[in-house]
């Protein structure tokens, strides 16, 4: 299992134990991270599972595909290291990753 820590806008930290192959979105929803709305269920079709990675983690995970990059233009307050959590697959090498979650997705 891989430990993923979600940090909410108010600073609250929520730890999740995720399986390799799951997405960050699945881990967040499973751990009850309310700000990851993930309304379309993980199809890169709604833009409501926005999260922000550190520069270090952003450079270590595979880059966003064009669909995700297009969608990221429309999330609230996009950052250079923004990702849609439904498109980030958790790998064995992601032990201890921290993920910032915005206050709201809509």
């Amino acid at each position, binding site marked *: 299992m891989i430990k993923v820590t979600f940090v909410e806008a108010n600073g609250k930290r929520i730890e999740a134990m995720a399986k390799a192959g799951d997405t960050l979105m699945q881990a967040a929803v499973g751990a009850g991270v309310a700000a990851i709305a993930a309304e379309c*269920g993980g199809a890169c079709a709604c833009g409501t599972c926005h999260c922000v990675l550190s520069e270090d983690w952003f450079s270590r995970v595979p880059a966003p595909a064009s669909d995700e990059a297009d969608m990221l233009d429309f999330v609230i307050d996009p950052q250079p290291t923004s990702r849609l959590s439904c498109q980030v697959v958790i790998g064995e090498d992601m032990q201890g990753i921290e993920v910032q979650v915005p206050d709201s997705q809509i």
Partner: protein
Amino acid sequence: MTQDTPATVLLDPHGAEFAADPYSTYAALRALDGPYYYKEIDTWMLTRMADVEAVALNKTMLRNNEAFISEDARLAQQRAINFHDMPHHERFVQVNLLESEGATHDRLRKVVFREFTPAMIARQREAIQSFVDRLLDSLSDQDEVDFVGDFAAHVPGHIIGRILGVPDEDCPQLRHWSEEVVRFFDPGRGDEDKARAEQATKEFYEYLLDLLAERERAPQDDLLSRLIGHRDGGRLSQDELISTAMLILMAGHGSTIDVLGSGMHALLRYPEQHERLREDPSLMKTAVQEMFRYESPLPFFHRFATEETEVGGKLFPAGTRFGLLYGAANRDPARFENPDKFDVGRTPNRHMAFGGGGHFCLGNHLARLDMDVIFSTLNTRFAAISLAEETPEYKRGLSVRGPKALRVAWQRA
């Protein structure tokens, strides 16, 4: 796969009983040991959230079956649907973003998505507020109204018209066209419904052609002008532009009226929840979310399996049609605590009223903003609202959910 299901469970979505309470039928179907075969439309009905979600997210499940049936079968299918000659309807309504898949769907969706983002929709807040205020002013001398017919039915068409770029004075006409065009989708449609759907499509098409010509001469800050830009940039064809404009009108119209009606009804049925919302307006977002879950306005969609697939623990062959009963999934106790309780503060509330997967509703932010503005305004302008009839009658059928009318009495604040 055998098609036997216990005779004790009967799905009769056409009757008054189902319209009054579809949820006990949904619960009985959910208690079966797998999907329920509904012979009338040759469809396996899914009522559990896990199954509905899995099928909606499965990329091998498609909205139309044209990819895997023969050309002869496809033509026969079209003839069976079109016993009337409906050239405009077929060209602009039966083929659109919603019905497309794959690269065409992705291309069209990308064009429309940017128009319906939270930021774009937030620009409409003032216009919605001002229209709602004017409408309520016009009803202010009445102590009792039909919340659906006198009020809710006027709002979505007006706002969608504004977004498209239709002049205010033409917006009432949009509502008429929208209601006529969707007559084709009524399960009990007859020749007259089809003729009226075709006539309205033709009129709306001709209207759009004139408006497009105006926007070509003098572009405005509106959706039609931007669609022209996309057309000229090669991102969609002229027919796709028309069908997209029609879909935007239809998709956001009836369902928003329905959920406004059922949402109001829910608040009136559960006055303690209404009071809670009045006392804490910060609950409006979760309240609106709950209105969509509690009475999902579009409770039924379908998908076709393009390959052999396991659903709900059973194996189904390619070509199987599945019914996604969103209205049932949204009351599944495996996903929601006390699913039959209307709770304006429900969190989390991961319902599927807007569908899921690649066809997730593009207009969701607009519908939610309409609701937010309307219920916030009602709570400010009226000291009390109550139900003025005992049991409002809901529309019949599997595909829609909302009261036909809703008599309410209100006292101004």
